[in-house]
């Protein structure tokens, strides 16, 4: 199971890197989304994967899943959701104002309006 997750996370990071290196702003944003998905899965996997056990810490529980990574990725997912939404809005406003979503054309000297 861990091996499978490792491959999945690797593929997510790979795709994210590829997308973030492209010129189109929308692709870059999708790339950041995939990157954070990969990071969340990594966090879950690093906490240890268990099958058939509830995330409870009972006195006599024979086995239990660690609830902490789940709480952590829940927080991280909410944060990355918020940031992605904000990023999309900013990208749209930038597209309206600057007339392009090509990162090559978003360069320039800082002083120039």
């Amino acid at each position, binding site marked *: 199971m861990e091996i499978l997750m490792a491959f999945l996370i690797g593929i997510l990071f790979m795709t994210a890197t590829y997308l973030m290196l492209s010129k189109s702003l929308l692709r870059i944003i999708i790339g950041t989304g995939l990157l954070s998905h990969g990071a969340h899965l990594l*966090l879950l996997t690093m906490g240890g994967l268990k099958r058939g056990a509830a995330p409870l810490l009972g006195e006599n529980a024979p086995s239990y899943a660690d609830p902490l*990574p789940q709480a952590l990725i829940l927080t991280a997912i909410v944060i990355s959701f918020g*940031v992605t939404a904000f990023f999309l809005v900013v990208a749209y406003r930038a597209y309206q104002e600057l007339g392009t979503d090509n990162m090559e054309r978003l360069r320039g000297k800082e002083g120039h309006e």
Partner: protein
Amino acid sequence: MNNLIILPILIPLITGVVLIFFTKNIIAQRWISAISGLLTIIASFMLANHVYRNGILTMDLSNWEAPYGITLVSDMFSALLVLTTSIIAFAALFYSFKSIGEARERFFYYPVVNFLVVGVNGAFTTGDIFNLFVFFEVMLMSSYVLIVLGGTKIQLRESIKYILVNVISSALFVIAVAYLYSVVGTLNMAHISVRLSEIGNAGIITVIAVLFLIVFGLKGAIFPLYFWLPGSYYAPPAPVMALFGALLTKVGVYSITRTYTLFFYHDVGYTHQLLQILSVMTIIAGVIGALAYTDIKKIIIYNIIVAVGVILFGVSVLTPESLTGSVFYLIHDMNIKATLFLLIGIIIVITGTSDLDKISGLINRYPALGWTFFIATAALAGIPPLSGFAGKLMVVRSGFETENYIGAFVVLMSSLLVLFSVMRIFIRGFWGTPRAYKNEDQAPVKWLLVAPAILTVFAVLYGFGTEAIYPVISTAAETLANPEIYINAVLKE
């Protein structure tokens, strides 16, 4: 009395929420945020006082005891930074009243500034590594809004890059926490330190340490990772720039200091050597930038990078004296960067430009502005009686004592070049033939000068009162030098 620790986070948070309902009423917004700013200063002053008298203050949220629940920890280091943050935030708010403009005030400027303070104070106070990530995100989200608020072309263009860089570094932060959690199985910073010392000298810990250095280095703008900073900080208006320059990078520096003194102090050979090399390179890169530009904003922005290098050099040397120097310099630098950005804001309001070639002779009409600027620049460079001197002296001296000659020499030379870079502003902008500028009659210079003048007075007092302040600062550095103090206070062993 224990609840004192959460007040500097809670007051701005409640204020921010309340202010959202008053966006149409600008006068009410100003009053509410001014009062809450004052309350935050009082609360953080009481906190610092309490910590100084009674030792480290901790608070387990919902009474879940230390390794399990989320703990807030206020040692002297974090209490001092919280106090400085509150003062700077209040100064920037006060300055904003007349300079930020109604359009921004109507669109949630004050609530967002309050949320920024929540994030910064929270990051300084938290004792839980994942909670640090959460407060980082609160702070970054507010900074995204502040940098884009106003929606001019340059702001939109630069904010996209700023957001992108920080989203990637946040993902790296989650990855770093994941690796750390899999190694130690805890998130409480004191507990992590205990577990790491049990594990001892493993390669994986070095990997995690470097990963954390990358994450925090991106926020704190150390050598190879500072590329986003000059562009992004150039875009927003002066009070926002003051908040960013004084607070945001310093949170990264604080996190590096905290993790490198609390967790990763076992295998000093590799990680701290790396940190030292990077900090020296940071100073060099910053100085080159500060000398290369003739734009006032750029010069001061590159000076942020220089200061980050100086502080981290002190941290990497890792002797009690160098840590004291770093804490000294960190607080001085937060104060003086805010002052300089606010003063530059006034120059830009008067002249309408930040290009030095188009400015000259300001001191004839604005002597108060000129001399405040002069004192602030002298303090920045560390001219002896003023505030930058003591910290830098300690950093340099302990650098020489531990035979890190190159680094100490670079720090020493950097003060000279920093002085040169900012004196250029004074000589070219303030001296010379006076010119007429089209905005100068509407500029509320007297009002705007109040906040930076008070901060300059702090800088002077901080310098002259070095003897008086030294015990407080050395208490802070003592906790950094001996992690056991922090661990015992949190885990109550």
